[in-house]
């Protein structure tokens, strides 16, 4: 257990990510749509020479196994090929859209943890009290309200109605992006000392991240509450109370750490889901993120882009699972001893 375990996991993860691309490759090729005919204009797609030229450009004229072989050979060189829809390297597309998504997912994930976990604890500690009822109500709304509806309501209220939120998009109209380092405008703004940009970017993050967090907060709160209720009913908690430990100490030192494992698992999954992008929220807030790119690539049957996104999302899921497993080592010493 320890370093060797982590290393093994990393290797296995990479292999699984590549395996995932094979599955997606095969599934994508069963669709009866031709990406070249779909992309070309009406006149162009009736010109056999033009069609042949475009097919050859993306290797679509070769047998399937060769196409996948080319994908793997390119991948080994760190090249994901050229997107059929955007006509530029898939890696460039991903490099543009991923930072926007990471920025949004991280803020939403942060809100999820700092609101969901304390709310869950409070709901469990004061079970059936007012805070429990309020939390249950909020969770119900957050989980069950359709995201696009919530997104639009929030935008209409805070941007259209109260006029306190900025316009959809990552920055104000015409405000240039800070010098590119990470592609995350808040981070880049801070790194460049360009406080106006950082502040502007952060303000544009508020509404979409709250909308995204609404659903995940609900799930994390309910899970935290359930896990806390379970540990609060355990013998060691009763023992602690019998020893005369203050209730605050019981919650903090005895109950919460033991309730952390399921919460951690769930938070990891929620973050991964946020990172994979969210089409509806991105559409309404004109957020140039990965979700929309994935959606557009799928509609265009843009094989190179679909493969690139699959690989990336698989890697993100695996990396987060790995991080969660490593975190178990920290929160639950028994895992390490096993």
């Amino acid at each position, binding site marked *: 257990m320890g370093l060797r375990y982590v290393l093994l996991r990393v290797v296995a993860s990479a292999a699984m990510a590549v395996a995932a691309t094979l599955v997606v490759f095969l599934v994508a090729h069963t*669709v*009866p*749509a*031709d*990406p070249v*005919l*779909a992309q*070309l*204009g*009406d*006149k*162009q*797609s*009736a*010109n056999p020479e*033009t069609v042949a*030229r475009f097919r050859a450009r993306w290797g679509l004229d070769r047998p399937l196994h060769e196409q996948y072989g080319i994908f793997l050979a390119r991948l080994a060189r760190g090249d994901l090929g050229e997107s059929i829809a*955007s*006509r530029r390297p898939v890696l460039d597309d991903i490099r*543009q859209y991923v930072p926007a998504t990471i920025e949004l997912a991280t803020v939403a994930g942060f809100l999820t943890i*700092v*609101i969901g976990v304390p709310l869950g*604890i*409070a709901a469990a*500690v*004061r079970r059936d009290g007012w805070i429990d009822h309020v939390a249950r109500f909020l969770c119900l709304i957050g989980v069950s309200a359709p995201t696009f509806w919530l997104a*639009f309501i929030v*935008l*209409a209220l*805070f*941007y*259209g109605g109260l*006029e*306190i939120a*900025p*316009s*959809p*998009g990552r*920055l104000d*109209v*015409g405000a*240039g*992006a800070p010098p590119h380092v990470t592609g995350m405008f808040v981070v880049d703004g801070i790194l460049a000392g360009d406080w106006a940009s950082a*502040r*502007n970017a952060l*303000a*544009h993050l*508020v*509404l979409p991240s709250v909308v995204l967090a609404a659903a995940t907060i609900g799930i994390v709160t309910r899970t935290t509450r359930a896990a806390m209720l379970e540990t609060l009913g355990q013998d060691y908690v009763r023992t602690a109370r019998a020893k005369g430990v203050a*209730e*605050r100490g019981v*919650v903090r030192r005895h109950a919460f750490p033991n309730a952390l494992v399921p919460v951690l698992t769930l938070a990891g999954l929620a973050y991964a889901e946020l990172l994979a992008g969210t089409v509806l929220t991105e*559409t*309404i*807030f*004109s957020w*140039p993120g990965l979700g*929309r790119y994935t959606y557009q690539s799928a*509609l265009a*049957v843009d094989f190179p882009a679909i493969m690139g996104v699959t690989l990336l999302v698989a890697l993100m899921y695996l990396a987060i699972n790995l991080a969660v497993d490593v975190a178990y080592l920290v929160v639950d010493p028994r895992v390490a001893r096993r």
Partner: protein
Amino acid sequence: MMRSASTLRRCALTLLAALLALAAGSSPRPAAAAGKTTLVLGVDISDARTFDPARQFEYSSPITMKAVYETLVTVSPGDYGTVKPLLAESWKLVDGGKAWEFKLRKGVKFASGNPLTAEDVKFSFERLAHVKDQPADLTENMGAIEVVDPQTVKIAMADKNQPLLTIFTSVSYAVVDAKAVMAQGGTSAKDAEKADKATAWLDTHSAGTGPYVLTGWTRNQEVVLERNKSYWRAPAAFEKVVLRHIGDGAAQVLAVRRGDIDAALNLSPDQLESLAKDANLKIVSAPSLDYMYMTLTSSADLNATLAKKPARQAVAAAIDYDGTIKGLMGGHAIRPATFIPIGLGGSTEALTKEIGYKQDLAKAKKLLAEAGVPNGFSFKLSYGKASIAGTSYDLVSQKIQSDLARVGIKAELDPMDQATLRTAYKEGKAQAVLTFWGPDAMEPYLWAQPSIGRVAKRVHWTPSKDIVDLVNRAGGEPDPKKAAALYREYERMLIDQANYLMLIQPVYRVATSKAITGYQLTAAGWQVDLYDVKPAK
């Protein structure tokens, strides 16, 4: 425990307050204010792929292309048959009608300061042909280009009986600054498909003579244009133009109401209605040259009944065309008689009334009996999950289904994603398709020719020699009136054939702020000429 809960509450409140403060702190400058030096359009630019004139072939990008580049000749909104001068002062047919000779306007400079010469025209057009990207198909009838003198250029036609002059109005025929493009790795040589390296630069810069210059493009975010200081006419009205990507119509409504954008370009009929009474806004409109149409196959292998002409004619006679336009488009659409849209080649609303299809259920029943299916028949109607001018194919297909049911014809609806639909349609595998046609250039031949060519193949119809001759004569006819008469004959034959039923030619509408004037929609492909847009006095 009490303390723990109250700490929690305090934290939560602090966080909420911080979020609100942050959101409120950065209230943006409304576009309407600030002395109006910047024009902001709210538009879906997710289709933009490039701003290289030799490669661009998208829907939203021509707005930008028209603002930064100019063509030899152009057309005015609503009058698409009259070719007008732009970079060329005059032109004439030479060499026995086999070539066009253009005299260039004197004193025109590119934004770089380089003067416009015939060499630039030659370079631009040859590069367009040799880069061999999508718009290269518009160069089919372009022959050799000869620089007669620095102000005169002669362009041969591959076939003098086919149109070329009208095609020069397309933004694909933008004249670029040859020196500037070559400096960025551009070439017009035969091997330009591989050798040309200027696209990456042209995506975020421009090399044209237009009233604005392109200074930035961030995909799915915005396109930024700035005033061209050495423009040959009066300088453009705005220092800066921003095409802001707002993909969602509802968000465009909020933004135009608030004054963050001066025009909202992608609104549905409902959204436009909701803005009609806003005192700060004005809805501008113009008929497009786009249309939604339905094809019916002639292939007995695909559908034995549809293959019979009277059965197709019965379908044509059963559809409630006016009800579709009124009910689904709120009346904001017209309908061409057949494949040539209203506004080109003599196609008018009056012509549709005269020779086009109309609903006549008794006639439909008679035709069904003639086809040997008095009790009706069924066919599969395929369409994409998309919409035109805010009205979805779903709605239109349901309307058609219910109309046809009245005479016993059963349309089985077959929705699919656009990519699958286009594949099935282009490969000629569908019985009936509901789809869309948009203009390549302002030349009726570009509609008529495919209707008896590649589109006819998709519906498995082999046109007679008569109709092919008619279209070719019309295409080579330089007098628009004579051409229109020939097209009318062709249209009658096409209508009798009943493979194509034109349903909706939308009137496009844009909500604009009253802080601007001159926003005039055009169907010529570039949607609006931003040079005409000015701040309101």
